[in-house]
């Protein structure tokens, strides 16, 4: 294959394609600034993300990032190790590209009559670029830059409905907490730099392993704690979660889908990379006196429990989904909690699989909310009553998303939760595994509540026939089909995720 002749930086193509597409949108916008031609804008965005997805899938199939002993082409370093393209990076680039494509297609209808169309789509692409780079960033500096590149457009996107109070308020809250978290994160970086003298993850690991950071153990520990704070913000984990319900509720629903799926996945990939590459568990523990996986054990249990309990008490569908997405962050945190034990690669792989499945089922669920907002049916569970009569296909898809989020076989969510469960058991995290099961059982309550509303309850108000926006429908159906299709396709996904995790932990 021609891959060998390409210069190394082309390995970042999945991210670069997204950036390039954003530039194309700028050009389109400057040629015809008043453009309401949302078809062109949404189409370009979707095309760009599908190309990005295609390139990432091609790289993974061509063996980029797989160890050369397995017949792969090895990890590719870019810019003197500032970025790496390995299986982990490609896996998450795929998630980001998929969600971006779905969101772009769905936004075509949702944003139809809004102003700032070109801005909207280019911000989506820039945020996606940032997330894609987060997947590949290999030094604390590039991680921070990528994180901010993803965050700044997100703040604007949340508050893009300028006439809507909720949107502006959510955006402001998101921005303030985001700024604070960034400050904490960058302070954490400086402390880690102070303790180790390096920013590149592998160099930090060398210093820690050699024991040279031991005199500054307290400094390093504080730095790590602050880094965890930064990740907790980006992944909407406790205790930095409280922006999420506000922001998701206020944001346009496709953006809520985007943030809760892609942005969360991107937050997790840097967490996976930083904590497996830079801070080897045993050596770090001897330097700072504490095993940092303990922090993730606690975070995982608290986050999933708090998210699920809060979700169960909501009356507003979007807030319910927002809290449930906090709960799912808790599930994914298990991936970090278990990596110190034997079988850690299974736990981490399982968390990656969960984020992959989540990219479809959660995006789909939020896109259904977008559809409901498009119809103007209201926001509470009661408002959704009886929608199944009017829109059976979309509601069928919704049922798939809900049952999958709840982890009912045979849907994708069952598999990833099951692998998390066995992974946690193998890693000896009994309490976490138990919490996972109890929380899943609890979550069934509020997920079926939505299914019950659309399918079983009688509508409160008589509705006329509902419009069937093509873009939203297409995105929802694709997400539903993928949630189902993961059943036969789970083998390769599981293989890729576990291989990537094994390589990271090696």
């Amino acid at each position, binding site marked *: 294959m021609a891959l060998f002749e390409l210069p190394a930086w082309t390995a970042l193509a999945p991210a670069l394609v997204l950036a390039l597409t954003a530039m194309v949108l700028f050009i389109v916008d400057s040629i015809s600034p008043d453009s309401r031609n949302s078809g062109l804008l949404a189409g370009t965005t979707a095309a760009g993300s599908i190309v990005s997805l295609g390139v990432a899938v091609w790289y993974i199939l061509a063996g980029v990032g797989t160890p050369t002993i397995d017949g792969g082409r090895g990890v590719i370093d870019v810019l003197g190790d500032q970025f790496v393209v390995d299986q982990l990076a490609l896996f998450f680039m795929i998630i980001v590209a998929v969600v971006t494509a779905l969101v772009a297609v769905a936004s075509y209808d949702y944003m139809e009559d809004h102003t700032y169309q070109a801005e909207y789509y280019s911000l989506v692409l820039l945020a996606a670029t940032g997330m894609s780079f987060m997947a590949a960033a290999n030094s604390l500096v590039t991680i921070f830059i990528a994180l901010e590149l993803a965050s700044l457009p997100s703040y604007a996107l949340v508050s893009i409905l300028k006439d809507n109070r909720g949107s502006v308020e959510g955006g402001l809250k998101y921005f303030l907490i985001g700024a604070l978290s960034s400050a904490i994160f960058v302070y954490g970086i400086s402390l880690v730099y102070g303790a180790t003298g390096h920013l590149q993850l592998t160099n930090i690991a060398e210093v820690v392993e050699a024991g040279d950071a031991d005199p500054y153990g307290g400094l390093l520990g504080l730095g790590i704690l602050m880094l965890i704070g930064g990740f907790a913000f980006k992944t909407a984990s406790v205790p930095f979660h409280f922006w999420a319900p506000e922001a998701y509720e206020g944001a346009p629903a496709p953006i809520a889908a985007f943030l809760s799926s892609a942005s969360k996945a991107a937050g997790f990939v840097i967490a996976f990379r930083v904590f497996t590459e830079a801070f080897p568990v045993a050596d770090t523990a001897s330097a700072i006196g504490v095993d940092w996986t303990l922090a993730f054990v606690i975070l995982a249990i608290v986050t999933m429990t708090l998210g699920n309990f809060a979700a169960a008490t909501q009356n507003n569908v979007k807030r319910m989904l927002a809290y449930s997405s906090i709960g799912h962050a808790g599930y994914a945190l298990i991936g970090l909690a278990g990596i110190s034990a034997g*079988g850690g690669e*299974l736990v981490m*792989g*399982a968390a990656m699989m969960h984020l992959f499945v989540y990219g479809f089922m959660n995006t789909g669920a939020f896109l259904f909310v977008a559809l409901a907002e498009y119809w103007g049916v209201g926001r509470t569970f009661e408002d959704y009553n009886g929608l*199944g*009569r009017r829109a*059976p*296909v979309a509601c*069928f898809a919704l*049922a798939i998303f809900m*049952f999958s989020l709840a982890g*009912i*076989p*045979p849907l994708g969510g*069952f*598999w990833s939760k099951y*692998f998390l*469960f*066995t*992974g946690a*058991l*193998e890693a000896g995290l*009994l309490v976490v595994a138990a919490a996972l*099961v109890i929380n899943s*059982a609890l979550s*069934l309550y509020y997920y*079926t509540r939505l299914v*019950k509303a659309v*399918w*079983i*309850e009688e509508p409160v108000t008589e509705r006329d026939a509902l419009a069937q926006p093509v873009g939203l429908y297409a995105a929802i159906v694709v997400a539903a089909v993928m949630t189902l299709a993961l*059943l036969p396709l*789970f*083998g390769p996904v*599981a*293989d890729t995720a*576990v291989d990537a995790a094994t390589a990271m932990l090696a």
Partner: protein
Amino acid sequence: MMIEALIAVALVGAFVTFVAPNRIAGKLAFAISLIPAALSLWMFSAFDGSGNALLGGELAFASEFEWIQFGEYSISWLVGLDGISMPLVVLTTILSSLAIVSSWTPIDERESQFYGLVLFIEANLIGVFAALDFFVWFIFWEAVLIPMYLLIGIWGGPRRKYAAIKFFVYTNVASLVMFGAFIALVFGLGDVTTFALPDVTAAMLDGGPDGFLGIGGTTLASLVFVAMFLGFAVKVPIVPFHTWLPDAHVEAPTPASVLLAGVLLKMGTYALLRFNFTMFPAEIIEPFVIPIAAIAVISVIYGAMLALAQTDLKRIVAYSSVSSMGYVILGLIALTQFGVGGATFQMVSHGLISGLMFMAVGVIYNATHTRMVTDMSGMADRMPVAVGILVAGAFGYMGLPLMSGFFGEFTIFFGAFGAEGLAYSQVFTALAMFGIVIVAGYLLFALQRTVFGPYHLETDYDVDRAPLHDIAPMFVLLGLIILLGVAPELIFEMITDAVDPILETGGEL
């Protein structure tokens, strides 16, 4: 690939029906359902399996593919039929077709969705009986819940929401308990790295688990046995886990009741036979024999007494299932050829008879809009054919010779009476046989009041004869009931062929 074809036809048919227009959905679903029905009958005639699927028997129509590898554990697509599952697959396909026909009259809204869900259930039920890898099996097992929840919740009676949620919560919690137990068992087995049931069975009979999480091997096996028994007991259901059943049955639309009583309950007893009574060696089962037999007898008597106390025809039929499934449990725990074989035969037989009874009650309800025994009398005057079938079905329930119920119950009692591993087996059997008297009592009592005597009806509806498409499926069922009653060896031979290895390899006490 025949089993895959069966499942695929039903699945694809479900999606096609779901998007078809309401007006043709019923006929379309029936036409589609005839394909798996015909295929399964052909498979039945060409059946060449031997022995028990879990004990190294020769499977019919088997296929196996590698599927998912996670760590050292692998999951594969493993399906096949033996003498126990073959009759149940045929029962599923036939009963699904008939249930679809019997829905043509009562279902008059959102038809395409309704029939789509029925076909979806059919696909999963076939999967439950054919799958031999725990994961594949569990997926089908759980996937049955969702459509049944929706069938009850959308098309059910006035208290449908309550009934649907109760059904879902009860059976789902039970599944979780069972799932956790099985996973713990596989982890405890150590050197077994697949979830294929034959492999797990072989390891269980060859020394059992080493222990897990500090729990010793024997204790673990016993705990798993209990947890799985509880998990399946809810599905069967047996007293005291039966309370979801009358609610679900009474609220469910007729065709859903037919499938619920006809096939879904059999999932529980089928799983009990496959897991609890095949996988575990005799020394693990032994301490539980008396309690299980006691629960079985209590289910028989208590279910029958509850039925006796009802005035709603559908409730009577629903509670009688609790009692009939008690017989099945008694036959299983006897662990003799006639006991287990008779129990398996009774699963098929009860599927046919209870299906028939629910259809007959449904037809009467369609005509009268009441199911209360107190509201009607002399129905035989106005609906002679439907009522005739109801009476015939009731006689089948009571175990009239030459109908399938007789052979099923007789073999169970015969097997249980002489069970060597079951202390006081004669006492248990005698008590259970007393159930027959109560069954005859409440059925005759109900028939006496509704069917015979002068015509009287306390509703404003004109009672008319049921259309042919309501009557025809009942005749098919009645024909099958009599056919199996006259010639039980049609399926009993293949059943005993699959049951015998269970008793040889350690089951027999």
